């Protein structure tokens, strides 16, 4: 089994007068684990249905492995889809589910049964072959769905948020398992999700989608560390935001005039003095200063509250109308009381300024 690449050329999907996916150019490499991340209603499911063949693109072209998919239905594409609710056949046994695609390809019963058992072996389910999906646990059903999709030896596996129904522990386990399967089979995985954790941990590359458009494509590090616009900066991960105007630029850094002071940050979007701008700092890059001297980018703030998240705590501090979130690992062991005065700060390298734009609602 080897993956194939997917090329979208100005492909769009329109329903009557509603454009679900705006004309889009995108290349997904063969054998890549590619995630499409976006809020619900952003068009990612429509895009997936277009890739799988349940929808035809309104304009443009879609090529899988170099072949145009125009007019080719889901049965004849080299893709296999794992549904959000898995859509296992409840009246068939587990092995019959896995062998369904082979049955449709005319395999004899002994042959397809043998192959199904082999596949079930790889997902550690050979014991359950004669049960029905209803008798399995959530994680086991998940693995049956994967085995069923792999049975037809697809070049591209499309996954529509298949882990969303699982509890946290199982979800983390299945992430590793999916990644493992992707590596050993070399199939191209296109993974749709609204869960950034899933997208960031598993993917080779992530596309962030909003309102039918792709906002940014890049590796997890690029998307998280170098967001292309305010939407990506606020949708992927958390960010502290300062609005203002660029005062001056020099050596790749810009100084922002904001209502609570002047701040310096990387100017990777090449803004010019006078531009209205937004400054983003991740909460984990915020520091609580213990020095008496005033550091660069200092903010005088009042401590509000602390939320324990497990491995780290979310601290909230207020400066004027602006609230800041600070991630503090729980090894530091410093605690604050409400209305303590703090000096916050961040390194200019940890912050970035970009032109004003739409934010994520979340």
């Amino acid at each position, binding site marked *: 089994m080897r993956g194939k690449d997917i090329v979208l050329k100005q492909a769009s999907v329109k329903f009557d007068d509603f454009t679900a996916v705006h004309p889009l150019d995108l290349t997904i490499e063969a054998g890549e684990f590619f995630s499409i991340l976006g809020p619900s209603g952003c068009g990612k499911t429509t895009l997936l249905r277009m890739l799988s*063949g*349940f929808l035809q693109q309104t304009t443009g072209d879609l090529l899988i492995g170099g072949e145009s998919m125009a007019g080719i239905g889901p*049965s004849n594409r080299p893709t296999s*889809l794992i*549904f959000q609710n898995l*859509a296992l*056949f409840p009246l068939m046994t587990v092995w019959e589910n896995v062998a369904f*695609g082979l049955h449709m390809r005319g395999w004899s019963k002994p042959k397809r049964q043998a192959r199904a058992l082999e596949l079930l072996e790889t997902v550690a389910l050979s014991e359950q072959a004669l049960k029905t999906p209803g008798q399995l646990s959530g994680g086991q059903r998940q693995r049956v769905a994967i085995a069923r999709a792999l049975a*037809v030896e697809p070049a591209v596996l499309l996954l529509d948020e298949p882990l969303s129904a699982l509890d946290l522990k199982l979800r983390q386990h299945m992430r590793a398992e999916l990644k493992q399967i992707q590596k050993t089979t070399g199939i191209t995985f296109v993974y749709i999700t609204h869960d950034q954790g899933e997208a960031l941990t598993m993917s080779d590359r992530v596309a962030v989608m909003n309102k039918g458009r792709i906002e940014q494509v890049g590796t997890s590090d690029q998307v998280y560390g170098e967001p292309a616009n305010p939407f990506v900066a606020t949708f992927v991960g958390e960010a502290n935001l300062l609005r203002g105007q660029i005062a001056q630029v020099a050596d790749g850094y810009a100084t922002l005039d904001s209502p609570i002071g002047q701040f310096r940050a990387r100017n990777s979007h090449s803004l010019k003095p006078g531009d209205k701008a937004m400054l983003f700092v991740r909460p984990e890059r915020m520091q609580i200063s213990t020095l008496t001297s005033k550091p660069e980018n200092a903010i005088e703030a009042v401590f509000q509250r602390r939320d324990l998240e497990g491995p780290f705590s979310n601290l909230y501090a207020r400066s004027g109308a602006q609230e800041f979130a600070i991630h503090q690992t729980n090894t530091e062991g410093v605690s604050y009381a409400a209305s303590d005065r703090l000096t916050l700060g961040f390194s200019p390298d940890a912050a970035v300024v970009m032109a004003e734009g739409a934010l994520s609602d979340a």
Partner: protein
Amino acid sequence: MRSLRRSFGGPMTAVILLLAGTWIFGLIAGPQLIMIEQSLWRMEQGEGGAEISARIDRLYNQIDILSFDKMDIEDKPASAERDATLAEFTGKIDALTVEIAVLEATETTPRKVYSIDNYRLMGSAHLAIFAKTVIASLGVTAIAFFVCYPMAYTVAKLAPPRRAALILLALTVPYAINELLRIFAWQMILNYNGLANAMLGVFGFEPVPFLESGTGVFVAMVYAYILFMVFPIYNTIETLDTNQIEAAKDLGAGTWSIHTKVVLPHARPGIAVGCIMTFMLSAGSYAVPYIMTRGTADPWFTQLIYNKFFESTNWNVGAAYAFTLLAVCVVFIFLMMKLLKVRLQDIAK
């Protein structure tokens, strides 16, 4: 029982149990038991008993006629001739009365005899009608299924919601019309001088006796009961997760495989209910064969039952026939459940 009391309290539980009991014993078990009991006996008279009874009946008839004539004469003005005729009539009546008394003395009271003769009485002619009724009902059921399944699937899974609602409405509207009128509509269409034959005439065909050949009954029955097939199937297909159809398609299934492997297995309970309802209604239909044929074609088995009860007033044989029909229907239910691997609780859903 205890949970009932916990949910509804004592008095309400009593009412519920009373109603359920009345329903089960008074309306289902009771009448059936009486019917079965009726079918297992007949009144038997002694040697020549039936003849004597018939003669006594005839003599009573003669007395009645003579009494009428006598009353006519009594109204006439008095005369010697009138008195003589009156005396003559009185004499005749007295003679007959004596004869009746003698005959009645020899008459024995009929005895109630238990046997299965009532069932044996279903001779070859009736057996043929019985078989025809069952086969025709199976035919109606089969046709209704083949018409309804694609329709139900289309409405449930293919049509956009607005159009699906419209189709359902269009399906239901004819059923707001009285069943008799619906049958009459077909009667008018399939009549020898009806619409269908008029159309055939335009193309130069001889008129076809649709009603007299029994075709009419068949057609009207399919029409009359088709809705009882559509809705159960529609309801079960509606509950099928559309993703399953898409999953099958994605895995390479064609239209035929999608239906045989995914949709039909899911719709089994609905199909079973639809088939059972359509079969029972067709086999038990009285109005459709009665209106469509009006005696011009072989009767339906239900018409025989009616005749036994109300025309030859032989309730025992009628009960036997009715019970035979019931038995066939029960067998059909179990057959369908076995065939479609449906359990009672699936049907109840």
